[in-house]
């Protein structure tokens, strides 16, 4: 998701004049607007933090699906059977 997709939400921050001036001039040097300059690294960091986290938090709808799945485990699909019956990679 990039900062340039449909903007239907708003974030506001309090900061000092010095910080804002520094960010604005740095953004200017890169040719990005202030929002993209600030938001893009934060997004990349957020994705990394989520990828590193060892916990997936389910919404209520997902919890219902998950419970239903565990209550009645599906039989493997033909593709899964074929995959696990196929030849293994050579390991070293």
């Amino acid at each position, binding site marked *: 998701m990039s900062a340039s997709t449909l903007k239907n939400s708003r974030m506001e921050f309090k900061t000092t004049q010095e910080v804002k001036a520094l960010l604005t001039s740095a953004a200017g040097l890169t040719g990005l607007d202030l929002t993209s300059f600030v938001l893009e690294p934060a997004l990349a960091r957020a994705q990394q933090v989520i990828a590193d986290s060892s916990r*997936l938090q389910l919404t209520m709808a997902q*919890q219902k699906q998950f419970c239903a799945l565990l209550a009645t485990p599906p039989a*493997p699909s033909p593709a899964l059977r074929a995959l696990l019956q*196929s030849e293994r*990679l*050579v*390991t070293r």
Partner: protein
Amino acid sequence: MSFVLETYDPGKSYTNQKKFKCGIGAIDRYARDKDKLHDRVARNLVKAFVLLDTQHDDQFVGYYTLQAHTVFGSHLVQLSNGFLPNDVPCVKLNMLGVDQTYKGQGLGRLLLRDAIERMVFNAQTLGIFGLYLDADPGAVAFYDRHSFVRLTDAQADQPTPMFLLIETARQAL
């Protein structure tokens, strides 16, 4: 073409690891940047398995990572009448990618096969419910075909959480 899979060793340098390009930015950066794949394996947060081209200087062709994980739902105990805990232990397949120059040879499938088999093997020595991953929009159909079930509530554009149950995988082995 001749390939070999080995456990990723952070003490070793792999030909072309820094140029790895499967086309998904996050998976590419994870392989290339020292503070990601390398450091996370060195810190025992993840285990990684790398596919090497033995005919080309053991070039880094693809990889996947596994880590201990929990699927959490604040109401799982209630919703399952006590059958499930709120924290469900599982294995997460965090990254899986094959370099673009090697696409179309079914190598991604073989990496997935290895990951599933290791998950089933792990389940013999500790309690886990299955294999969880976040699928990119372009990969959902691939995992769907292989019995991973979507846990949908995600907005389009976001990765889709998908889960392969240990029972389903065991039956296919």
